[in-house]
């Protein structure tokens, strides 16, 4: 089949198929031709970081061959990255300044952090020898702290993607500072429901249940284990108890149990939101505090290194 015939019949050669496949893959991966999607932004930013890291690696290799101390260059680069990463906290506290959107800052923060991890690997010679932590107390602490901050950053990156989705599933989001108020309202509502009972049997059954189980759940705070790993076990246990009460109650008592169950679910949703929001806030606090400590120790390390480096 001649080339003309092949073109006319639309039969593609293997190389043409391969070229088309590669072009399609790149097109789909980068999101070119479509609106500026999240995937496209991620691909482009990742490529930029990869290219930057490759450039730094080449520069380090060249400088090493030129008998220069590459640690000085990568150290200053790391220090710049740390300052850049810390700046997001300043930006967050000064929202009035026209410094760009917080979303843009977050993206820059994420990819600067990834870039800093790559530079850190080039900076610490112990890593090239298979040890993650550098020698010495100061530099060992510094490298451990860097990995801690980096690890918390990676966790935060994952948590900031998954926890909002889990919070959304619960229902309406409540401000963390308002959750105690809502807890109090629920406890008040439960007490009112119990107080308004008229049937002696209901008073005896529901009151006994409230005294032994429900009041502890409603007025107590979630345990540390629940805060770390929130689950519906406790809620289901209480709800199962309320359901068990139905066979001893008349219709009015069952309706009261239904409202109490709704309040229990409301309380559990609040606890769930509290645990997840607390997790996010503790992470932010931990990440920012360790970042400050890391910056201070990095400055100390930099000053000492520049004092003792000979050339």
């Amino acid at each position, binding site marked *: 089949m001649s080339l003309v015939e092949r073109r006319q019949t639309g039969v593609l050669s293997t190389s043409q198929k391969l070229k088309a496949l590669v072009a399609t893959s790149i097109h789909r991966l980068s999101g070119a031709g479509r609106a500026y999607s999240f995937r496209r932004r991620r691909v482009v930013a990742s490529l930029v970081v990869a290219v930057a890291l490759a450039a730094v690696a080449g520069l380090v290799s060249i400088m090493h061959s030129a008998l220069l101390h590459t640690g000085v260059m990568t150290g200053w680069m790391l220090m710049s990255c740390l300052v850049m990463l810390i700046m997001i906290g300043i930006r967050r506290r000064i929202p009035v300044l026209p410094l760009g959107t917080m979303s843009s800052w977050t993206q820059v923060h994420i990819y600067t952090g990834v870039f800093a991890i790559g530079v850190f690997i080039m900076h610490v010679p112990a890593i090239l020898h298979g040890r993650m932590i550098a020698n010495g107390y100061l530099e060992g602490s510094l490298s451990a702290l860097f990995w801690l901050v980096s690890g918390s950053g990676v966790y935060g990156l994952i948590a900031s993607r998954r926890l909002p989705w889990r919070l959304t599933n619960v229902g309406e989001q409540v401000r963390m500072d308002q959750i105690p108020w809502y807890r109090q309202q629920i406890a008040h509502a439960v007490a009112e429901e119990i107080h308004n009972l008229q049937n002696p049997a209901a008073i005896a059954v529901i009151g006994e249940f409230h005294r032994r189980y429900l009041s502890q759940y409603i007025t107590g705070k979630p345990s540390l284990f629940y805060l770390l790993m929130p*689950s519906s076990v406790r809620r289901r246990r209480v709800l199962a108890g309320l359901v068990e009460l139905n066979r001893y109650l008349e219709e009015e008592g069952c309706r009261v149990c239904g*409202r109490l169950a709704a309040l229990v679910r409301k309380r559990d949703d609040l606890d769930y939101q509290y645990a997840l929001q607390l997790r996010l806030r503790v992470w932010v606090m931990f990440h920012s505090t360790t970042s400050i400590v890391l910056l201070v120790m990095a400055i100390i390390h930099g000053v000492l290194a520049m004092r003792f480096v000979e050339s």
Partner: protein
Amino acid sequence: MKRSPQRDHVELPAAPRVQHPGHPFQCGRGYGDESAFGSSAASPCEQGPSASGECPLTRVCAKSGSASASPNRQRSAESLTPCRPIPTWAGSRRRWTVGSLLVFAFALIGIFGTPLAPEFVRPGNLSTSHAQILKGDLTSGGCTVCHGNVSADAWMAMRESGHVGTESTLTMSDRCVACHHDRIPTELATSAHNLASETRIAIGKQRRDILLASSHNVGASRPASNSGGSIWLPPAAISQDNVACSVCHQEHHGADADIKAIADTRCQSCHSQRFGSFATSHPEFNNWPTTSQHAIAFDHSRHANIHYPKTAESATADSSAAASQFDCRACHIVDRPRAGMASKTALADSIVSTLPFEVACASCHDETLGVQIANGPALIELPILPPEIAQQIESWPADATGSPDGKLSAWMLLLLRDQDPNVDFSPLADLSRVDWQSPQNRELAVRLGRAVRQFAIALSLDGQSFLLSAAERAGADTPVAKAFAASFPTQVMRDAASDWFGKPIAKSNDRFSARNTADEPASIDGVLRSRDEDVLVDWSASQDEDLLLSDSALPDAFTPSNIGPPNRGGHPGDNAITQPPVNWENELSKRFDAARSQSLGGWYRDDLTLSIRYHGSGHSDAVLRSLIEMAATSHGELRSMVGAQPAVAACVSCHSQLPWRAAPSNTLRDRLTRFSHRPHLDIVALQNCEHCHAMPAADSPSEVESSIALLRPNSHSHVTSLQHAMGVVSNVSAKPETDTSPADHSVTQGDSTPHGHSDFLPLKKAACAHCHTANAAGDHCTTCHRYHVGDVSSHPTTVAPIQPVR
């Protein structure tokens, strides 16, 4: 966690608006604080608590506490009941953050304000070889041994004084060299390869000459080596005259860290010729391996192909058949580095140490050497001067007056030069060829005669001490000069000087004089006159007889009548008993034959030539060694005169260069390249030395000679440049100002074999490249090449160790 759909939905009242976001406390109304309103449904106040968590109504209540209890006031007081403020997350977070940072700050203060600071800031353990600096008790000062700016006080002082100080001006490299000055020259410590810039430039020029020469010489091609990705490497970003130690050696990477490891790319950053792997693009070897310029001139090929087979043919079947086989191990042994040779063994390969002459060579060469050194050189010899010149010299002997003839003793001229360095008697070296009509020559001859006379008198009076100082000043090593001076019999010189320039004394008792005969009765008077002077003569035995020559004192076998002709090579007197007695008086009337009567060596007086001569005792004779060492420091003409003496020629035929023993080569080329036989000899195939050191066949034209011819200066011009370049590269010193060319140490002129050349067939790179690849025995630059090639062994440095500041 999957949440179930909401059932029995409960509507809760809307939460009160957060009045002060980010405030550390919020109003406690409605947060279960029943004391506030009596009802939890109360809404928070607008003002909110203070930053310290105090409700603003607390002060109002305190002021109105004494008010009257009217109903209106009671209602008003209920609305003014203070709440219990609730800490917000923002406040909690702030407190936790500040608390954590305070703990961190206190921890830093606690660390840096205590003696823990050096241990804390130490970036890691030192390598094993340096670990004693911090851990051991051999070194005091800790960090300050290497770092001068470690203390906070010194740091602040340096900052205030603009980094000017005494201790602080010392760089870390200076502190490295303070300990390592035995291996690294102090003044060139930070120069690349510890070489002066002039030397590096000279080497670069020589390498270009070599490449240029090889480009014209097809047979000795050295491929251009720029290849692969190495040509893209950047040049060194630092000055080659300021290469700090820490550029390559970085400490604090743990005890097991190899601080000497260096990447090949770093080695090549300064080099204009770069290459990739050893096997593919390293330049081909040229004239490798080489011999040391101080090596003994030994032709392996001739010995293996000619001398040993010839000896084997003449040897009987039962004697020394095995010894007639050429075996490398007969001369080269495997030994261990000697103590105190650390710097030299770093360059030398102890496996190829050569056995001494007595073990390796004497069996064949001892006898011929004895013949060659029989005609001893003269320490002093009176020249035959024309009468008109002799008249101008006080008491010049008549026997040394007449038609000038003969040659001056080179040994005597060496020592006369020491007496008066401004006078050069070389124009009178051959008296028969001197233009005696020239006033200058006549004046020089007069000065020569006077100098010889003074020299003889000085030798007679001061004797050995005069000779020792003269030999040391002339360049002989002290031990050799001492042995030389100690062997000199001053009494012989005294007698000779007395005979030559004064009244004769003790002629009949002069045991060394060949002139003394029994028919000189006047000598008895001399003995009688000088009996109070000669302490060696025991006059108590007999007034007119020498105790040592007394017939009664000697056993019968040693009476003069029994003294026969001395044997050669045996002990004197061995044949005295067996030989028939001869007329000893006639023997004494003849000229003294040192080869016959003094076969074991020693000084003697020759009255025929009016000289004091020395008969060599054999190999490693101290007197001849001192003569050659003195000649090595003299100028060319005088050196050639000494070299023309047969005994000296016999020595320098093998010892063409000083020092005498085949010392480890210390040329720059040898320091740049290292090789150890030991790991190679563990390979069975390489245990045969000829695997690498191949010798040309006996019946074929020597390939080595052809290669030698290439290296001779009279070859083609491009080859001349190659030879010149190779020679200079081989012998260039690390310090141009102290550079000494091979000719400066050469005793003989016109050596047929250039130094640094081996008589083996050149070794090709392929022989090494079989194993030395990246995946096998390694092909790093530092596998075969050293960086620190500064010559400290010949220029020892004495640097006082730096006392660190505590």
